[in-house]
């Protein structure tokens, strides 16, 4: 994961751009709209499901940890196709902050022993669901960019 400071926007063709209010559960709206936007992009069904999970988790983080659950503060979502890459940029207005999640890798055995808390799977899921993840901050705009290739090694 890298943290950039320039307000770069991914190049390529924009498939969708929308915002959701920072309310619990609205990650479902984001994943449904992203799924519709990439329906013709060539992602296999399995990889589409992975992307949807990553989008949902990143949007939840933006709602809860970026915008602190303030309904009037939007989470912006932009979907770009750049060649074989599908790029989903999810932006909150929380400024520089780390993606939510424990510093250590979640470990089920440690969670069952009470050493780690039961939750804290979000960042782990994102990292394992997509081909790439980048984080950048431009003032208050904090963006998590997810990349999923629609060609090549597909499962």
């Amino acid at each position, binding site marked *: 994961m890298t943290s950039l400071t320039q307000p770069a926007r991914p190049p390529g063709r924009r498939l969708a751009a929308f915002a959701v209010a920072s*309310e*619990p*559960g*609205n*990650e*479902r709206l984001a994943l449904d709209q992203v799924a519709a936007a990439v329906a013709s992009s060539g992602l296999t069904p*399995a990889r589409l*499901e*992975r992307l949807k*999970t990553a989008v*949902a*988790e990143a949007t*939840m983080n933006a709602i809860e940890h970026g915008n602190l659950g303030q309904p009037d503060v939007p989470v912006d979502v932009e979907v770009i196709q750049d060649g074989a890459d599908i790029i989903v940029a999810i932006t909150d207005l929380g400024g520089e902050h780390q993606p939510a999640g424990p510093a250590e890798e*979640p470990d*089920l*055995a440690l*969670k*069952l022993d*009470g050493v780690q*808390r*039961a*939750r*804290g*799977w*979000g960042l*782990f*899921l994102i990292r*394992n669901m997509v081909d790439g993840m980048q984080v950048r901050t431009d003032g208050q705009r904090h963006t998590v960019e997810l990349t999923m290739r629609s060609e090549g090694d597909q499962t």
Partner: protein
Amino acid sequence: MDGPRVTMDVRHIGETAAVVDIKGDVTAACEPVLMSAYEQAGGLAASRLVLNFGGLEYMNSGGIGMLVTLLVRANRHRQQLAAYGLTDHYREIFELTRLDEAITIFEDEASALASTGTAR
């Protein structure tokens, strides 16, 4: 969006096993629903709880955390947890998180119940 979008109906199988039919979204918001289902399933009297994910529409990290909480409770009382009806995607997530090592996954209800001799 309002409250939990899930129903969890409990079916008792014999005296010590129960199936929980999960329909809808499994998120942190549905923890009260799951814990209520756990109690309806017999609480500490149930030695085996089978989770039917055939009606699952969506599960997020909060839902996974909730299942971990259920597992902690079940382990404390030496109860077995099993599951069936998972799609390939959620089965992959179970494998990724290693939940599949703690919650035995079966192809269907009959095999889940047969594994402990509670088949109907």
